């Protein structure tokens, strides 16, 4: 991967998510009162308004909900084509991550594919990317 990616600014809401890869963990915020998952992570449950929420480690697998093959170079250093996908996260109903599907040809990705997280580190951020489970 050539050009550096735009990275998130870490704050108290998102640090657990963006740094979980250091411990190889995909962490999604969850309410301890009603058990709902909350993404994007916030300090309040969108289901019951409780603030008794904390990041929880999920399995790190999921299913491709939808995807696109990006062919356009949005800046000169961008390497194309690549797959942008939305992955439905196993064990966290209603949570989807926009991500890249890596480790296979762009034409090999389809809706319904089973995928597993792998982290790409840039600076202090661990980006959750996914690869197909063969």
């Amino acid at each position, binding site marked *: 991967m050539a050009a550096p990616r735009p990275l998130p600014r870490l704050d108290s809401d998102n640090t657990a998510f963006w740094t979980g890869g250091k411990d190889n963990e995909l962490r999604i915020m969850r309410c301890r009162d009603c058990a709902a998952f909350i993404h994007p992570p916030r300090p309040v449950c969108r289901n019951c308004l409780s603030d008794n929420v904390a990041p929880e480690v999920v399995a790190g697998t999921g299913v491709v909900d939808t995807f696109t093959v990006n062919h356009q170079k949005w800046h000169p250093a961008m390497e194309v084509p690549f797959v942008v996908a*939305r992955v439905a996260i196993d064990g966290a109903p209603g*949570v989807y991550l*926009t991500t890249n599907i890596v480790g296979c040809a762009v034409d090999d990705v389809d809706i319904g594919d089973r995928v597993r997280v792998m982290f790409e580190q840039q600076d202090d951020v661990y980006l959750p990317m996914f690869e197909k489970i063969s």
Partner: protein
Amino acid sequence: MSSDYAYITGIGQSEVGMRLTRHPLSLTVDAVREALDEAGLDISQIDGVSTYPGRVSAMLGFSPVGADELVDALGIRASWYAGGMEISSQLGAVTAAAMAVRTGQARHVICFRTVYEAAAMARPEEYPMSRRGRVDGYSQWTAPFNALSAAVWTAQYAMRHVKQYGLTREQLAQIALTDRANALLNPRALVREPLTMDDYMSARMISTPLCLFDCDRYTDASTVIIVSAADALDEVSCTPVRIEAMAGSVERLSWDQAEWMACYPTGEDLWKRTDYTPADVDTVQLYDGFSFQAVAWLEGLGFCERGEGGRFIEGGTRIALDGELPLNTFGGQIGGGRLHGFGFAHEAVVQLRGKGEARQIQGDPRVAVCTSGGGPLATALLLVRD
């Protein structure tokens, strides 16, 4: 004084082009002048201003003129004004103005959208994109994965439609083909060259399934819609168009946590607020910054069942200028230019007043729907000429 209805009176538009050198405030004033002339109003009668998204200093080309600047620059004594991005999309500026005149906050409100993205690209020293460091807000969930454009976000909804409902490229092409055919009849349209199915099918991909011709292009222009109070209509000389219903609903304010785009709840809510039904509509002017958004709007507004949008537009005859439901008769954003939402309201009024000239639809159109927005942003207006 309050009333159940607000009305669109004057409409105006500047020159529409790419890399214009005329100042964006001057373009805005051109559109204001045309709208005032049409309504038979004087600037001294304007007491409100509304815009989307307000001046955006980090991306001046995206929005170089704010409501506050227009109020001051035109010497308007404003009793109400608003401008901002946290609203249901571009035409949310019109729904806000409609509520303002209905509650007596103002009598005649200039609503405007000025875009200057092509000029800004050509003159970066004058209109810089401020280079931020790290990203925050919603873009932190998309930008790190190089999902950098709404084209990519919209393409994922389109791909789901392809896989789940069988939308084909030939079907999707009908939005661009219809837009570009209509643009040939609109002297102000940005793109005035014919487009064929062969051109479309051989175009390079931007983000599958969207190709180059599924996307609008950076445009420089200003569009103005004047919203007037019911008890102020005796001051105008044009045929008023009544805002019969409006909606701007969302289930998740997110490009990726929502199963489908906000046009679905918005379309559903629009019809809850009126006795009219989709069968009464003579023309639709539906947001098509990316072609698929217009397909989703047709479904969301109930012109066809969810999943049937591709088959609904198949062959293009139904949505053609002489079809049963003429769509985007000015060329939409793909042909008419990226007027960013306001072009759809402008054209709905043109058609309802029978002022479309070469592109005027047949019959005596009285009911139109216009929309703006894609993804989590959606506004729909039902307009009626009584």
